[in-house]
C-alpha cells in the first residue's frame, strides 16, 4: 500500500514520460499537422491569391485547433478525446492537400479550383446571404417534412393496425414507394400553381414514403405481447394506436423519419436548383452559372454545415424520445 502511494507521487521518469506521449501518438499527430498546416499557409505559393488570403486560412486552422483543444479539456472519455484528435488530423491533412494542389504545386485549374483561403474569405463575407437562403430553404423543408410526419404516421398506424386495410393498401405502397421522388419534380412544377407549392409537395413526397413504410411495417409486426398487455387493460382503439403502438414502435418510426429527412433535403436542393429564386440549392446553382466557383464551394460547405446541424438536433430529439431504452 505504502509503496504504491510513493510510486504514484514519484516524478515522471524519462521512460514514463516517453510512454505517456508515445502511447497517444494522435495528440502529437494532430498538433504536428496543425503546425505544418500553419507553416504551409504562411509560405508563398505559386498563386498570389493564396498569399493574399493566407490570414483567413490561418484563422480557420486556428479555429479547428481551438475547438479540438477545448473539446479535449471538456471531455473526460479517452476514446472520445482520441477521436477528436483524429478528426482534426484528417481536417488538417485535407486542408493541406487542398492548399498544396492549388497554390504550391498549382496542379489544378485556377478558375475551377479556388485556394482554401479565398473560400474561407468568401464564406465569411457571404454569411448574411447564406442566412437569407437558409431561412427560405428551411421554410420549404419544414413545411414539406412536417406535413409528411403528421400525415404518414397516423395513416400508417391505422392501416397497419387494421389487417384488412393493410392487405388492401400494401401492394400499392410496394409500387408507389420505390419511385424516385425526383421524377415528380417537372410534373409537380406544371400542375401546382407556384414554385413554392411544388417544392413543398416534392419534399413531402420524398419524406412521406420512408416514414409511411417504416411505420406501416412496424405497426403490422408490432410485438404481440405488447398488444395483449394493453388488451387485458381494455384500452379503446384510439389509446391502443396512439398510447401503445406509437411509443412501442418509436425506434422504427425514428429510423423512417431520419431517412425521410435525408430524402427531403436532397429533394429540397434539387427543386431549388431547378426553379427557385432563393435558397441554398439556388445559391449554388446560380453562382455556377456565373462561374463564380469560390462562392459555389463556400455554398456547398455551408450546406454541409446545415445538414450536420439538422442531423445533430434530430439525434438529440431521438435520444430524448428513446431515453427509456438505455
Amino acid at each position, binding site marked *: 500500500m505504502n509503496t504504491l502511494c510513493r510510486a504514484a507521487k514519484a516524478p515522471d521518469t524519462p521512460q514514463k514520460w516517453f510512454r505517456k506521449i508515445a502511447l497517444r501518438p494522435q495528440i502529437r499527430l494532430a498538433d504536428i499537422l496543425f503546425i505544418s498546416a500553419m507553416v504551409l499557409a504562411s509560405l508563398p505559393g505559386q498563386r498570389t491569391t493564396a498569399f493574399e488570403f493566407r490570414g483567413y486560412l490561418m484563422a480557420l486552422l486556428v479555429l479547428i485547433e481551438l475547438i479540438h483543444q477545448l473539446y479535449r479539456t471538456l471531455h473526460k472519455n479517452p476514446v472520445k478525446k482520441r477521436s477528436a484528435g483524429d478528426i482534426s488530423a484528417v481536417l488538417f491533412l485535407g486542408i493541406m492537400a487542398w492548399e498544396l494542389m492549388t497554390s504550391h504545386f498549382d496542379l489544378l485549374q485556377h478558375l475551377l479550383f479556388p485556394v482554401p483561403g479565398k473560400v474561407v474569405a468568401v464564406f465569411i463575407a457571404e454569411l448574411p446571404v447564406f442566412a437569407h437562403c437558409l431561412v427560405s430553404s428551411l421554410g420549404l423543408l419544414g413545411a414539406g417534412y412536417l406535413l409528411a410526419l403528421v400525415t404518414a404516421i397516423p395513416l400508417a398506424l391505422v392501416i397497419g393496425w387494421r389487417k384488412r386495410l393493410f392487405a388492401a393498401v400494401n401492394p400499392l405502397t410496394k409500387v408507389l414507394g420505390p419511385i424516385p421522388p425526383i421524377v415528380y419534380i417537372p410534373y409537380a412544377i406544371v400542375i401546382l400553381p407556384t414554385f413554392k407549392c411544388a417544392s413543398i409537395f416534392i419534399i413531402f413526397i420524398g419524406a412521406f414514403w420512408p416514414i409511411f413504410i417504416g411505420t406501416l411495417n412496424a405497426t403490422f409486426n408490432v410485438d404481440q405481447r405488447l398488444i*395483449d*398487455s394493453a388488451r387485458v387493460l*381494455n384500452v379503446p382503439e384510439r389509446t391502443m394506436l396512439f398510447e*401503445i403502438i406509437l411509443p412501442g414502435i418509436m425506434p422504427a418510426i425514428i429510423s423512417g423519419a431520419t431517412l425521410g429527412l435525408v430524402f427531403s433535403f436532397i429533394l429540397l436542393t434539387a427543386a431549388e436548383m431547378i426553379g427557385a429564386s432563393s435558397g441554398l440549392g439556388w445559391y449554388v446553382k446560380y453562382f455556377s452559372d456565373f462561374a463564380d466557383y469560390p462562392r459555389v464551394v463556400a455554398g456547398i460547405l455551408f450546406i454541409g454545415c446545415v445538414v450536420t446541424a439538422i442531423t445533430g438536433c434530430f439525434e438529440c430529439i431521438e435520444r430524448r424520445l428513446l431515453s427509456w431504452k438505455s
Partner: protein
Amino acid sequence: MEKIRLDNISFAYAQQKVMIPVIREVTLSVKAGEFVTIIGPSGCGKSTILSLLAGLNTPSDGSIRIDGEAIRGTGSERGVVFQHYSLFPWMSARKNIIFGLRQLKKRKSHKELAEITDHYLSLVGLHDVGDKYPNQLSGGMQQRVAIARAFAMDSEILLMDEPFSAVDAKNKMGLQELLLNLWNSGAQKKTVVFITHDVDEAILLSDRIVIMSACTKGIKEIIPVHFKRPRNRATLIKTPEYAAMRHMLINSLFDDLIEEVAV
C-alpha cells in the same frame, strides 16, 4: 354461486397452415369467491387456458361464461398478470400502474390516482423505484409492478399466470400473504384463477387445485384443499395431512412424467 364456467372448450394454435391442438374438451367451473389453482407439466396449456379466460383468444369449440354470460373479448371485470412481460417499457413503474387505473373509467383526480399507485407500490415493496423504467428493474421487480397494477385495478376476477415465479423466496411469501389479504378483503371475495409450478404455494393458497395432464389430455384431477383459513405456513407444513396432500399432488404430477418417459 358459479362465477366462471368453461364448457367443453377446445383450442388450437394456427401455425403456418397447420392447426396445433392444445386444449381439448376441457370443462371447469369456478365458484364466486373461490381460489382455484392450476398446476401441470410445462407446455400442457395452462397459459393457453388463461388467455382464453382473459379473452385474448377465443375457443374453437365450447363456451366460456362469466356470471352466466358468454364472454366477448377482454373485460374490465377480469384483471390479468401474465407469465412474461406485461409492463410497457416506455412508462415508468408508476406510470404503468396509473395507465392501468385510467382505463377503468372511474373518474379519479390525478392526486387520487397517484395515492392509489403509491399505496400498491409500497404493498409490493417497491415504493422507492416507482420512477424507474421496466428495463432498469430486475425480472422479479417487473413482475411485482405488474402484480401491483392488477391489485390496484381491483377487479372481481384475478387471472394470474405464475406471478411469483421470478420473485425471490422472501418477497414471494410476502406477496402470497398480500394476495390472500386482497382476495379476502372488500365487500365481496374476489375469484382467483392462479397458475403455478410450486406445489407448496398451491396448497397454501387454494380452495381447489386443478391438475392438468400433458398437452390436449385435459384435466387429470381436481383436488379440494380443506385446510382451515387463515393458514399458517409454519404450522401447516408440519401436519401429516399437509405431507399427505403434498405427496398426492407430486405423485399425480409425476405420473405423467413417468408416462412420458415410458412412451
